[in-house]
């Protein structure tokens, strides 16, 4: 069931985005930073447009804006000019520079070019930290780009430290700003400092302002990143992250920071594991507020289980998000029938199977490297009752006249994508209510009588 059937040459309506986009999102979660694409102008503009459609927030991505002659003679001069201009106008503390397919293909050596630039600007007090990351869009997806950028930040900033503090690092991956706020809220209730890397909770979901911020406030503080080498442990969410893209493993290898790989804390069990991990690390019980959320969530499962039992769901999107959502669906008695992602980590199938084990009557179809044409083809036989994923599934939902519960990224046909809580007990509650109510709405609207009670 692993390979796509049939194995199309072309991709139609892809279920993935390109690698540099992920990097720009990760860089946006670092304090006072500017994401920068080394490539042609269009990439930056297209990605900004795409990101804005979801977050409804300014998203400045600088570009080296290569033209025809640079493609031939190399993009170095434009890169340097661009860094200079960004420094002058934005006064960033950090510029995160991601390569693109163009500059990878013409063979620009980003680390070398940055080295030259640093030499050039030596002595400049305000010189920002430059963090390059290689993100050719012809390999991997935005998630590989995201993780690689986070790792690059750690690689560039984190310093060796003799002592080990009680600081806990959380490497959440690409969650919503609301999710990150929830993690911050959780961490505020323990008695040890936390560093969440990256942190897009303010930078991609900020207040309206009197004065335009050149760089949105918020993001992980750079001194905290520097000190991560002394952390007591690094918790990294995501079963499908490649080792070479893992910031957590880098912290372990380079600085000896104990590494805890968890799934995205979506649904009951993965959230339980997260809190158990925090308890292990801090020695403190789960704060009462979350125990109460857990209790009420479980209570609501009893109240609502019948409305979702046995309903057939197609789940799609980023691999780790799909793993987390599938885990949750299995818990509540929804039957995942297809778990699909455009990513190709090679770890997806195993992860999905693990979270399904013992809870579902039949392991769902699990496919890496899928596009929406293929999902739609498979859906014809799967008789799904509901779709769970981002806005790109709308057309399929419409075609099949079934509800879609929008989660993840991008959500551009509804407001508030940045405010969706996916994680923790509260996130599970939110997902459960959305799914059960979507199914109830469908049943009610389809019924001839329009009954008043469930």
């Amino acid at each position: 069931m692993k390979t796509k059937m049939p194995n199309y040459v072309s991709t139609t309506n892809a279920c993935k985005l390109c690698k540099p986009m992920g990097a720009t999102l990760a860089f946006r979660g670092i304090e006072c930073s500017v994401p920068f694409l080394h490539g042609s102008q269009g990439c930056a503009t297209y990605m900004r447009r795409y990101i804005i459609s979801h977050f409804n927030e300014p998203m400045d991505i600088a570009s080296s804006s290569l033209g025809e002659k640079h493609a031939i003679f190399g993009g170095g001069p434009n890169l340097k000019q661009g860094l200079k201009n960004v420094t002058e106008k934005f006064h960033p503390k950090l510029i995160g520079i991601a390569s693109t397919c163009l500059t990878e293909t013409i063979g620009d050596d980003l680390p070398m070019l940055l080295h030259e630039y640093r030499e050039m600007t030596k002595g400049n007090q305000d010189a920002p930290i430059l963090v390059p990351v290689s993100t050719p869009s012809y390999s991997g997806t935005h998630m590989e780009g995201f993780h690689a950028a986070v790792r690059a930040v750690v690689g560039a900033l984190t310093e060796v430290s003799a002592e080990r503090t009680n600081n806990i690092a959380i490497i959440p991956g690409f969650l919503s700003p609301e999710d990150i706020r929830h993690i911050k809220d959780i961490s505020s209730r323990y008695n040890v400092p936390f560093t969440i890397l990256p942190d897009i909770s303010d930078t991609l979901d900020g207040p309206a302002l009197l004065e335009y911020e050149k760089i949105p406030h918020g993001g992980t503080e750079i001194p905290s990143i520097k000190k991560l080498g002394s952390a007591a442990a690094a918790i990294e969410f995501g079963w499908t992250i490649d080792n070479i893209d893992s910031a957590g493993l880098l912290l372990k290898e380079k600085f000896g920071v104990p590494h805890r790989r968890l799934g995205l804390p979506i649904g009951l069990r993965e959230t339980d594991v997260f809190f158990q991990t925090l308890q292990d690390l801090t020695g403190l019980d789960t704060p009462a507020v979350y125990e109460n959320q857990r209790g009420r969530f479980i209570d609501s499962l009893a109240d609502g289980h019948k409305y979702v039992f046995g309903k057939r769901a197609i789940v799609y999107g980023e691999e780790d998000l799909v793993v987390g959502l599938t885990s949750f669906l299995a818990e509540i008695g929804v039957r995942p029938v297809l778990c699909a992602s455009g990513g190709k980590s090679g770890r997806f199938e195993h992860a999905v199977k693990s979270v399904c084990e013992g809870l579902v009557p039949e392991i769902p179809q699990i496919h890496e490297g899928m596009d929406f044409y293929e999902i739609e083809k498979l859906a014809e036989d799967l008789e799904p009752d509901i779709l769970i994923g981002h806005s790109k599934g709308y057309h399929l939902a419409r075609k099949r006249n079934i509800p879609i519960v929008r989660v993840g990224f991008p959500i551009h046909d509804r407001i508030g994508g940045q405010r969706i809580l996916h994680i923790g007990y509260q996130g599970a509650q939110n997902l459960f209510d959305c799914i059960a109510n979507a199914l109830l709405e469908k049943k009610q609207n389809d019924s001839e009588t329009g009954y008043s009670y469930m």
Partner: protein
Amino acid sequence: MQKNVLEERQNQVIRKEEGANLKISCDKESTAGAVSQRACVFCGSRVVLYPIADALHLVHGPIGCAVYTWDIRGALSSGPELHRLSFSTDLQERDVIFGGEKKLAAALDELIDRHKPKAAFVYSTCIVGIIGDDLEAVCKKVSEEKKIPVLPVKSEGFKGNKREGYRAACNAMFRLVGTGDTTGIPEKSINILGDFNLAGEIWMIREMYEKIGVHIVANITGDGRVEHIKRAHGASLNVVQCSGATMGLADMMKKEYGIPAIRVSYFGIEDMAESIYAVADYFKDDEMMRKARQVVKGELSIIYPKIQEYRKALSGKKAAIYVGGAFKAFSLVKAFRLLGMDVVMVGSQTGTESEYRELQEITDPGTIIVDDSNPLELSSFLQEKNVDIFVGGVKERPIAYKLGVAFCDHNHERKEALAGFIGMLNFAREVYSSVMSPVWRFMPRSEAHNED
């Protein structure tokens, strides 16, 4: 030295002075690191060809270019909707090393068999130019096999800006023109160029022309069909909405087939009326002109009173404009004037020197005129001019909203028809619906003002 404007860009921002004719620097590559709002060559080609609804649009390259342009435009079709799908060869590392020609040929084969399109456009992206795939050859071969036109679009992203993309699109379309049968096309016939049928605009425009007795051969490209474009050379006149996007095609058709072209705009009452009169004028047909007057009068009698109501609420409010092509800016300046509003800033991504000159002519003293701007500049202009509403596209929207400024989408994904007479009314309503929303009074901008 203007604050918030990079040194290299100082000449790309001017403030109109009465009597003076200031020179603006424009039509150049975007400054690296300036966070330009511009896209790329590929974007230009994609915009123009996108609405051809019965063609296959295959993006040859890594996944990004295809996925970021998937169904992002509001170009409607009255029939097939193949244009709304996002096709890509999704090039992988291996393809980049060994070349993507084989994959391209296989993808075309697969997709043409699957969808039976009337033609296929194959878009080059950045790296295709670099790795040296011979698109021309692949397309030719597939075309022969599948018996449909398979047209390469030379839209490598880095080879210029959007306008080069327009040119590449026109070149591709021009290969279609002249390949169809023109039998039965009446003399009083036109092609409509440069309207993309956003929110159904071209349907309204067609109706206007049909009402005065003009036959339309091809929509280029709104609600476009391959067969129509093939016989477009049978029309007597090309009516080009001058975003610049399709002027290149009109020029080539003039040269090759001797078809004259007139330039029009469908935005705003005056320009829309002028667009009808100009066609009637061209055909030197009194009956047609009489009907044209009737049509215009009829439409105006419906919308004018309503527009006056909006004007009452909006009069004296300040507007800023930043759009892709400068031509649209002219119409917007006039449209705001009709609503009694003051345009205090106007700019475009890709305006030409003559266009900026014209903007200087029609704007009031003090108006900021800007070429290829960026968020830092735009936000500072909004603040400097204390703007009430900003008109632009998706990338300008959060700048306005972040500062608590009303906004009107005038981009390619809009859901409201803004062209034609009804379009002017819609535009007024759109502006009204944003400017008059009570939410602005809760913004920091207003709260700070209230505390003064």
